[in-house]
Structure formats: structure tokens, C-alpha cells
């Protein structure tokens, strides 16, 4: 399985398609792309009372990198699989959670209380190291005094950044990232890599560096040296409300963020056209014409406004005239590639040692280029019998990872996954009934040094005529909240209404 490579690459050829006269339709707003950004834009338009819009999705189902699978005993994710509980200031996102009946109420301070069954069940993480499983993600077993000191020192810096406020009272790191302070004191971190930042701050502890590297691979699909230090610290700081406080808990479901996708999709289902490949977007005097290929037909849409919720790098291939007078360099928006494997197990491996930490939600292998696996039945409290494990592998360790990914066969990738897991679970071969693999050629935007606070990203936020870009790419960070924010932002802007709340910094903290 995978994104429609052949389909997708048709658009690069720049062939022209003639729309039959009776195959034109009009819509006030067109949305290209049914990932989280596009769906959120659609959700918002509907909330704002707009009915005359259409969402065009290339694939057979909506969801982008948040799609999921269904089956027994539970559904399972193909990509994004959790959402940290938003800060109280992120009102629009809270509205979505409330609509999905995920909330129980609020604390006296006004913080959200999410229903217990949707908060990631303890134990959340475990790590496999030298033959054994240990509690947590950071490897405490066998740490030296110096390791401890460095971890404490690192936590202290994280705390300092959590408390840091810029000249307008903004936090350095907060979700959505549009609310982050643009003061040079913080954004300067974007100029160097996270690896370089750790070096400059005297961090040498192997396990601390592993921990940070894992964070980069997990959230960005990049290695430590490839990630901007700003993005690296964003991971650690943006979900902590007060210094010394716990990181916001995770909301999760067996099918991961597929749950949100289903909700958003259902709320606008009559506006969605699936298997519609947009081959051309033509700015006109009155608006934007969109040409699609579907089921061998060419269809056209006359739109007044267009929300372009596809990966930004596709813009020059699709938007006529974009390349001739580019408002920004679309190729600055680089994506990483991944493969994701879903293993259908008839039973779970037995612990090999009586003191082994038991199966958790997220199960990480220390000595592995993969990100480990997530256990789908965990959140449902199903602790025995069949389950599905979702195994994540970013191609950041490879030169030309994307090309390699598509040259590998199913068998090659299954071997990579199984040999990796077999080190921790020798019986995995006998327990696995089926292996499904998804190749993500363009998975997530890469926050390499200089990108997030660079010029290209800033320019892409501006509308291009009647075309408004809306994608998590615009944040330089691939997160549900960012995609959601850009979807809502674009929806508001095409209607010339106010932008959505930017979150934390606009409200007084504590």
C-alpha cells in the first residue's frame, strides 16, 4: 500500500486536460486535499454557514497521513496516532474535542479534563535495551552520575524555555506554532542543528543524545544533525504548561488520529469527492478553475476561492503560472519518507524475563533505526489475545531514502521490520498472521535548520491571488494541531473573517 505514486506523478508531466463543457460545476470554495488541513477547513466552513464548497481528494479515502485501518479486535493507525491535550487557549481545537464528546469538564483553573478512556493508558512507553525492556522512553537503567547530571541539566534548560516569554508576552514554543514568539532570542535557535546545539551546551551523554535523536526521528523523521534546534526544543517545550510540570497527556485511540479524520469527514461527507486527482489549477479573473481526473473523466470546478491543502511542494506542478513568477520556492518544502507496517498478531509475545517491563502503548527499541511499535489494543484495555502492532520506520538514515523506499519490495521491508522486532521478540514470526506495509514517499515536512523561521515559509502563508495555502507544511512541523490551525485559518480568510485564535500567548497565563 502507499500513496498513489503513479497517480501523483502524472501531474508532474504537465499534460493538459480538456474539460467537456457539461462537466463544469461551480462552487464558492474549493478545497484540494482531504488530509487533516483540508478536512478542518471544510469543517470550519460548514460551521461558518458555508454550504457551497467542495473538497477534492486524490485517494480513495480521506485522512492523508492520519488514515487508519479497521478490523478485529480493534482499528489501527497508518500514521499519526495521538494528540496531546491542548492548552485551554486553543479554543477551536477544544471545540472539536467537545463535539466528539471526548471531554468531561474543566479544572478550576480552566484546564481541560479529557475522559479517562481517551487518555493514553499507563504504561505509556517502554524501551528495549540489551535484551531487556525498561519503563519509560529515556533509558535510566545503568546510567552514570554524569548521565543523571546531564539529564537534569537538560531538563533545566527545557524549563527555562517553558518559562521564557518574548517581548509581546509570547512563549518561545507553543502549539499552534503560529503563536510562538518571533523574537530573535528564540528563533535564532533555528539557525543551527539540534546536534550542534547539544554540543554547544556541553551535552555528551550517549543516552541523552539518543533520547533527543529519538525525539527528532519520532516527530520529524529526521536525525539529530538534520533537525533544527528550534524544532528539537519545540518537541520538549511546547506541551509543558509550567516549568517543572508534566507534559500534556496524550489523547489516543486504537485507530490513532483516524478517529479525528472520521469525525471531520462525517461532518462534511456530502462535500467530499474522493478519487479526484487535481491535475490543474488555473487562476482566472473571477476566481480559480480546478481541473480533475476521476474515473477516466475530466471534470472542472469554477471556484471563487481555493484552499490548497495539499503538500506545498506540489504547487508549481499544479498551479498554472506559479513556476513562472513563483511567490516562494516550493522546493524549500522538503518532505521525509517513511514506511509503516501493521502486524496482525494472533497473540502477544510472552515476557522473556519475569522482571521485563510489560507491553506498553509505545514500545521503543534503543538499538534500532526504527521508532518501535504501538500496540493498538492498549487503549481499549485488551491485554490478551490478538492485537495489531504498528511499526514506524523513517528513512532518515539513508541517502536518497525516498528512491530506496520505492525500490524495496514488500518482502524487503517486511524483512527489515521482522528482523528488527525479532531481536526483542524471537517468536514474532510465529505470532504474525499478516503484514501490511504502507510506503509514505512524502510523509511529513522536514524542519531542517533555517526552514521554520526562513523566508519561504513566511511567504507561503500569504494567499496567491484567490488561492490560500493550508497545510501543516506551513508550520514546518507535521502535527495534527498545526494542520488543523492552517485549515481553520484558510477557511476564515477565504471568507474574510477573523483568523482563529492563535492560542496560548494571547491569553494571560496563570
Amino acid at each position, binding site marked *: 500500500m502507499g500513496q498513489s505514486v503513479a497517480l501523483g506523478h502524472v501531474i508532474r508531466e504537465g499534460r493538459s486536460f480538456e474539460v467537456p463543457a457539461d462537466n463544469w460545476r461551480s462552487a464558492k470554495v474549493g478545497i484540494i486535499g482531504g488530509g487533516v488541513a483540508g478536512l478542518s477547513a471544510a469543517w470550519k466552513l460548514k460551521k461558518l454557514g458555508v454550504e457551497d464548497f467542495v473538497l477534492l481528494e486524490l485517494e480513495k479515502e480521506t485522512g492523508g497521513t492520519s488514515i487508519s485501518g479497521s478490523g478485529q479486535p480493534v482499528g489501527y493507525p497508518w500514521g499519526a496516532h495521538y494528540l496531546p491535550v491542548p492548552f485551554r487557549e486553543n479554543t477551536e481545537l477544544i471545540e472539536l474535542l467537545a463535539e466528539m464528546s471526548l471531554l468531561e469538564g474543566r479544572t478550576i483553573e480552566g484546564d481541560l479534563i479529557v475522559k479517562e478512556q481517551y487518555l493514553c493508558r499507563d504504561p505509556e512507553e517502554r524501551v528495549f535495551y540489551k535484551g531487556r525492556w525498561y519503563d519509560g522512553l529515556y533509558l535510566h537503567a545503568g546510567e552514570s552520575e554524569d548521565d543523571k547530571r546531564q539529564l537534569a541539566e537538560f531538563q533545566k534548560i527545557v524549563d527555562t524555555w517553558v518559562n521564557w516569554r518574548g517581548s509581546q508576552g509570547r512563549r518561545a514554543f507553543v502549539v499552534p506554532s503560529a503563536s510562538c514568539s518571533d523574537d530573535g532570542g528564540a528563533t535564532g535557535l533555528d539557525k543551527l542543528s539540534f546536534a550542534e546545539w547539544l554540543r554547544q551546551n556541553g551535552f555528551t551523554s550517549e543516552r541523552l543524545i539518543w533520547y533527543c535523536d529519538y525525539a527528532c526521528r519520532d516527530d520529524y523523521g529526521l536525525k539529530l544533525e538534520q533537525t533544527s534546534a528550534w524544532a528539537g526544543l519545540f518537541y520538549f517545550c511546547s506541551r509543558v504548561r509550567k516549568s517543572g510540570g508534566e507534559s500534556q497527556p496524550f489523547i489516543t485511540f486504537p485507530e490513532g488520529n483516524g478517529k479525528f479524520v472520521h469525525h471531520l469527514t462525517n461532518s462534511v461527507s456530502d462535500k467530499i469527492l474522493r478519487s479526484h486527482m487535481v491535475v490543474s489549477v488555473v487562476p482566472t479573473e473571477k476566481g480559480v478553475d480546478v481541473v480533475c481526473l476521476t474515473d477516466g473523466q475530466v471534470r472542472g470546478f469554477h471556484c471563487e476561492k481555493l484552499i490548497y491543502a495539499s503538500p506545498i511542494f506540489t504547487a508549481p506542478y499544479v498551479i498554472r503560472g506559479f513556476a513562472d513568477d513563483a511567490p516562494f520556492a516550493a522546493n524549500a518544502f522538503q518532505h521525509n519518507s517513511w514506511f509503516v507496517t501493521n502486524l496482525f498478531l494472533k497473540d502477544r509475545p510472552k515476557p*522473556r524475563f*519475569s522482571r521485563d517491563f510489560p507491553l506498553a502503548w509505545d514500545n521503543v527499541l534503543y538499538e534500532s533505526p526504527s521508532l518501535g511499535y504501538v500496540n493498538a489494543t492498549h487503549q481499549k*484495555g*485488551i*491485554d*490478551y489475545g490478538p492485537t495489531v502492532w504498528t511499526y514506524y520506520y523513517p528513512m532518515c538514515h539513508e541517502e536518497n531514502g525516498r528512491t530506496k523506499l520505492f525500490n524495496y519490495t514488500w518482502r524487503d521491508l517486511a524483512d527489515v521490520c521482522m528482523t528488527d522486532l525479532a531481536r526483542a521478540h524471537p517468536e514474532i514470526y510465529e505470532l504474525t498472521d499478516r503484514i501490511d506495509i504502507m510506503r509514505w514517499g512524502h510523509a511529513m515536512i522536514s524542519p531542517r535548520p533555517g526552514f521554520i523561521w526562513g523566508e519561504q515559509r513566511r511567504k507561503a502563508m500569504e494567499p496567491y491571488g484567490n488561492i490560500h495555502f493550508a497545510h501543516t507544511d506551513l508550520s514546518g512541523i507535521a502535527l495534527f494541531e498545526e494542520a488543523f490551525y492552517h485549515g481553520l485559518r484558510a477557511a476564515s480568510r477565504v471568507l474574510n473573517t477573523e483568523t482563529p485564535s492563535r492560542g496560548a500567548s494571547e491569553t494571560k497565563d496563570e
Partner: protein
Amino acid sequence: MRTPLLFLNVIIIATCGLIYELLAATVSSYVLGDSVTQFSFIIGVYLSAMGLGSYLSRFVEKRVAEKFIDIELAVAVIGGFSAPLLFLTFAYVSYFSIVLYTMVFAIGVLVGLEIPLLMRILKDELDFKELVSRVLALDYVGALVASLLFPIFLVPKLGLNRTSLLFGMLNAGVGIWATWLLAPLVSDRKLLFLRIKGSIVLVLLAIAMIKADRLTTLAEDGLFMDNIVYAKSSSYQRIVITKGKTGHALFLNGNLQFNSFDEYRYHEALVHPAFAAHIGDVKRVLVLGGGDGLALREILKYKSVEKVQLVDLDPAMTGLPKAFPPLAELNHHSYDDPRVSVTNGDAFVWLDQTETEAFDIAIVDFPDPNNFALGKLYTTRFYNLLKKKLTPDAAVVIQCTSPLIARRSYWSIIKTLEAAGFSVKPYQTTVPSFGVWGYALAKLQPFDIPKHPATGIDLKFLNDNSFASMFEFPTDMTMPDEEIEINRLDNQALVRYYETEWRRFE
């Protein structure tokens, strides 16, 4: 050379050999269950390995006496440490069988080498007829000695680990002694070397013997004091029933679940307060856990009860009274009562996914929260799910571990129930095999502590005088002053409390 004394060696060697075989078979049936299979396999592997050893003896051509002593010392080490090593290996579950059979095989081969070599050493002293008759006769006498000593004296008095080490020492002793008996056949330099080696082996075994108490705590002395009469590993847990002077005891994963001599105290206290707290006839009862059927026995004493739904994870537990008839007798054949229906499943998932009519009483009798899979059965989420299955006046009882040993754990459960919206009356009683044990009686509305058990029910323990006193807490068991956390799915605070509190007693 002193031939008669060498014959004494034959007896000792033979005894040791059989002891190791019995030890391996016993340890493996203790930890793996199914003793017929274990004994049969071990004897088979051991005898065939002895055969191989005997065959291999032909390749020992020179310095037979020296090799014989070396073999004695090797048997002393492997055989002597066999039981402690097997118990320790058992923690490494998946390797256990490999270690077991490798060890049995190695001992078998070495023991198989002993007698042929010894016969060759003695062949110049006696004629063949005499030699064969004496050596083999004594070999079998040794086997008799071992098979009598093992169950009658060794296992009850010494335990498995010490028996193993003791016979290792005997083997080493034979080896060292043989350096004198066979001195003429070995060069002086070698003799000294062999004696040093022998002494090291002997000292190591002796140290282990002195420290055996530490080794034995693992399982043997604590868990398997009494004879094992039933053992089975299900997909979920290891079920062991022992029989001792006081009666039968059931262990799940090594944790005592009941002892037949005082379980009535535990189960009467578990069931009858709920009935006493319920106003009006109790018709529908839900039992979560309690696969042994003993709580059912108490519930079925009430004639008004029309339906009892029992949900237990493990079919091997709910099937236990059939597989082990003395348990059926103890629970008064409660599973045969037509009012009882059994579902095998995880109660958490069952509550979440099953539509059923509401229940008047719920008896929640899970093992203590010593892992996360059990911990979830004590969370606010679990109690909220349970609430949805109850009638408005329903009464619930939950077993809550010991408020004396695990005080914070106990009160964490109470606070969790309250956080889930229950009105709770904590109570405790004494069950000699467990110690002081805690429960929670809970209802959906505030209620008064019931004063006495229902009348007309046949009870061995509870009576009108003592019933109310269960709800009194001595000072050392009251709610601690410190902040006690509520157990939630996303913090599993209880499992962490429980682990720290009970670890002190391990």
C-alpha cells in the same frame, strides 16, 4: 588399592545419580506442571544419556583412574548445582526447557561413564563374574536408597536445593576420597592437582549450602512447602494447588488465593455484607473474577437469587472444579447450579462491550493489582463502567488487598471508588492464611453500615455480634495522612503503590 571401599563408592555414585534425576523431574513438574510428562521425559532423556555415557567410556583409554575422579567432580558441580540453577533459570521462562534437558543430558552422560570406568579400574582386582555381580547389585541398591530417601527424608527435611547441593558434596567427596583409594594408579603431581580441584568444588558447594536459605526463598520453601497436587499453566497464569495438613491451597502465579481451612472467612466477608446492604430481594448478581466458585457458593445460599453472571478471564480457572474435584466439593458444586452462567473474558473489556440487564449486587474479586493488566480493574474508568451495570440500589463489594501490609494501596482503591461516584464503607477482617484483609462495600447513594448479616443464612464465621466490628479500623490501618492518589487508567498509581508496599515482604 582398597577394593571393598570402592564398592561403597558405587553405592554413593548410584544414589547421587538417581537423586539428580529425581530432582530434575521434581523441579520441572513443580514449575511446568504435568508431572507424568515431566517424569517420563526426564527419565527417558537421563537413561539414554547414561547409555551414551557408557558407550563413550570406550574412548577413555589412558589414565582411567584420573578421568574417573574428574568425572566425579564434574558430576558434583553440575548435579550439585542443578536444583538451584533450575529454579533460578525458571525466571527466564523461554529458556527453561533447554537448560533443563541439557543439564539432565550432561549429568546422564557423566553418570553413564562412571560405572564402566570404575569396573575397568576394578577389573584387575576381581574376576569378571564377581565384578559384574557386585558392582551392578550395589548400583541398584544405591538406586533403592535414593528413591526411598528422596520423598521420605530429603524433600520434606532438606528441600530441593539443599538436597541437590548435599549430593553434589557427596559426589565431590567420593572424588576426593578416590584420590586416596586410587592413589597407586595416578601420578603424584596429578594427585595433588586433583585434590586441590576437589577441595574447591567441595568448598563452593558448601558455601552454596550455607547460603541455600537465600536461594530457596525463590519458590520452594515459600510456595511449595506442601505437596503439589495439581499444577497447570494456562494462557494467562500458572495455577497450582497444594495439599498440606491444613487442607488445599490455591496459588495463581505463586500468589496464595485461598486455603481451604479458612477460606470461608474470606468468602463470607466478601459476599454477605453486600446482601446485608441491599434493601429488598436480590435477584441478579454479578461476580467479576472469583473463578474458584467459592464466592458463588456463598451467593447461592440466597434463595431470592435468580441469576448469577460470573466473568473470569481464565477458562482454566472456571474449569478448575471439574479438573480438580476436591474444589467442586469445597464450592458445593456451585457451577452446577442452573442459576449460574459463566463467561470467560477480561472483565474490563466485558463491562465495556457487553449489553446486559442491571445487577442488584456485584462481587469484585480479582487478584491483587500486581501488574498493569490487573491494575486497570481497579481504576475510576473500571468503576464507572461497573456503575452502568447496576440497579439504583445495588451494592458492590470489592476485595482490596491488605490494609495492614499495603495501607496506601488499600486506601487508594477506596478513594478511587469514591472518585467514581460511589459511597463507600471500608471494612476488614482477619483470614489467618492471608493476615488482615480489606474490602470495600459501596453503593451509588449514601447508606448506613449494615448492622448484621441477613437472617436464615447458614454462616460459619459472620454473626450479629462481630459483623459491625468489621467496619472499625485500628489506628495502623486507617487512611494515611499523606495524599493518596486516585487510580486512573492513565496513571496506574495503584500498581506502583502495591509494588513498593508488597516488595518489602518479598
